[in-house]
């Protein structure tokens, strides 16, 4: 893979987020999408009539019981008769949608694109039914029928990691503490909380080794990003030149077998995210990143469960295999550490309205690189690069994207 046209570049012009919460009874998914879009248009200083294309990002047709919902989100914001495409890859949907925007603009299919995503996961169905809907994103013939569900799969991965490297429960509890704490400085976060490792360890055991506070929650919410070329932005975006310029400099994607059992055994086996290793290497190469821990200022990492963030550090090359727990304990990934991760609060603290999650990561990295984040969660800019990682299933679809500030 080689990017041939180095002159044609793709920029992030603005972003918007409609609050992530346990239940947004004030509206439905259509309303949240509109809110995120309006904020992104304001932030980017663009008009919808000028934007040429849209991408829809949502995961489940069950939660909102509205098939081809993208048609509605797209017509609600006056985009007809312009083109739209839906991207879907479970929890990786938003990350893949950003990659899609890059590909469409880079190829010349369009010069501008608005990407909107959300999920209606709150309390329209009981939590038990929601768990069943999510379980349907594992193999319905071979996994769901043995009463497989997501926390049980991820718990198996984590016990394998603990067995192989000696990773401790207290170490992944620090991730939950960090992400809930970071969310306190994000007013749009679902689950801000000031807690300790003891609080996590003492929370209700759900599936060993994961306790209640190790998990992300089901959230309602939406997010939106606007992308374009430089030429288009100069002509159509009031933000161009007025706000720091943020470019998409890397995108990578990797996959693995739907069922963990089918993955090459013992490596990655059920321990590692092979798709994340593959996708991150693509993205780093494209962005010219050799040492990601040093060459990035912030990283939004897919923390569906606290231990998933640790394993992701290793597979994203932020540390060696087996090293993540010790580094997390030392605060390497805290605000003020070597590489602050999930400054937004991540899935655990910010929330996980699936189709919005990856886009929300993009909005956070955009805010960080523009130095617009709340001062308590703003990172120091050195490399002026930030990354985001989102995945679906147990690492089935992985998308890694990199933004860079160009002054």
């Amino acid at each position, binding site marked *: 893979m080689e990017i041939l046209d180095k002159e044609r570049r793709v920029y992030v012009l603005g972003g918007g987020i409609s609050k992530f919460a346990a239940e*947004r009874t004030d509206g439905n998914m259509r309303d949240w999408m509109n809110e995120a879009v309006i904020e992104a248009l304001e932030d980017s200083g663009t008009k919808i009539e000028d934007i040429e294309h849209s991408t829809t990002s949502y995961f489940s047709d069950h939660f909102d019981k509205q098939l081809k919902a993208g048609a509605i989100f797209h017509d609600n914001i006056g985009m007809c008769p312009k083109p739209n495409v839906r991207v879907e890859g479970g929890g990786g949907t938003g990350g893949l949608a950003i990659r899609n925007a890059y590909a469409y603009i880079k190829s010349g299919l369009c010069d501008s694109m608005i990407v909107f995503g959300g999920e209606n996961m709150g309390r329209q169905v009981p939590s*038990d039914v929601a768990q069943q809907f999510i*379980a349907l994103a594992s193999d319905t013939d071979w996994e769901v*029928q043995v*009463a497989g569900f997501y926390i049980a799969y991820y718990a198996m991965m984590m016990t394998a990691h603990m067995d192989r490297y000696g990773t401790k429960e207290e170490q992944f509890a620090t991730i939950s503490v960090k992400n809930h704490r970071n969310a306190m400085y994000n*007013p749009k976060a679902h689950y801000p909380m000031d807690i300790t490792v003891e609080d996590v360890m003492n929370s209700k055991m759900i*599936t*060993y080794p994961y306790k209640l506070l190790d998990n992300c929650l089901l959230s309602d919410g939406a997010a939106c990003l606007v992308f374009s070329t430089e030429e288009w932005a100069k002509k159509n975006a009031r933000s161009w030149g007025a706000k720091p310029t943020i470019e998409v400099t890397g995108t990578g994607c990797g996959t693995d077998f739907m069922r963990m059992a089918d993955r090459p*055994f013992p490596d990655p086996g*059920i321990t590692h995210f092979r798709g994340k290793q593959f996708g991150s290497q693509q993205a780093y190469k494209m962005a010219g990143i050799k040492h990601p821990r040093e060459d990035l200022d912030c990283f939004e990492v897919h923390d569906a469960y606290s231990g998933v963030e640790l394993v992701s550090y290793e597979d994203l090359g932020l540390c060696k295999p087996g090293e993540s727990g010790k580094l997390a304990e030392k605060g390497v990934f805290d605000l003020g550490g070597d590489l602050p991760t999930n400054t937004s609060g991540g899935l655990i603290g910010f929330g996980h309205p699936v189709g919005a999650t990856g886009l929300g990561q993009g909005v956070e990295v955009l805010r960080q690189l523009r130095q617009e984040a709340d001062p308590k969660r703003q990172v120091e800019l050195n490399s002026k690069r930030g990354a985001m990682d989102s995945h679906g299933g147990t690492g089935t679809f992985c998308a890694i994207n990199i933004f860079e500030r160009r002054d």
Partner: protein
Amino acid sequence: MGLEQINTLMEVFTAEDPMPFMHPEGDPWKDFREVMRLEWKMDFTYKHVLGKYSKFFIELANKKFVTTECPGCGKVWGIPRPVCADCLTITKWKELPGTGTLVGYSVSQFVPAFMKVEIPYVLSVVKLDGADTPFTHQLRNYGDSTDNIKVGMPVKVAYTEEKVDHPLLLMYFEPA
């Protein structure tokens, strides 16, 4: 009459602005805060087809564990598949002895209501003898404590005598 004409009506309420911090000059949606909620029931039954791996489930009913072997590259997939995902050759059925080793597990103290299982519930990944990739299923009969469960322990396929809702539940794993 009025709202009571609506059979499915659950409630009408006034929602609060979830983002007041975004609206220091007042709620832009103030005329849109009245919300109606309905009950919407959906009930489907599918005629589900198990496709080209149906033989696996038929043999389970005969208390045999079969999977597929690739005549091209020789790989034996723990979970059968009609086409080898490594070399795209059409596979052949092969019976395995049903013994193996536990390579991973999780213990759930809580499960969603749709899962008809006893608590604690143990999901396990087992490397079966004669297969190159593992198989996922429940581990039962592990004794009086989940502390008895260890990665690396020998396990075997056991067969259910009761009626089941899905043919995959004709089997489970237990310590060998």
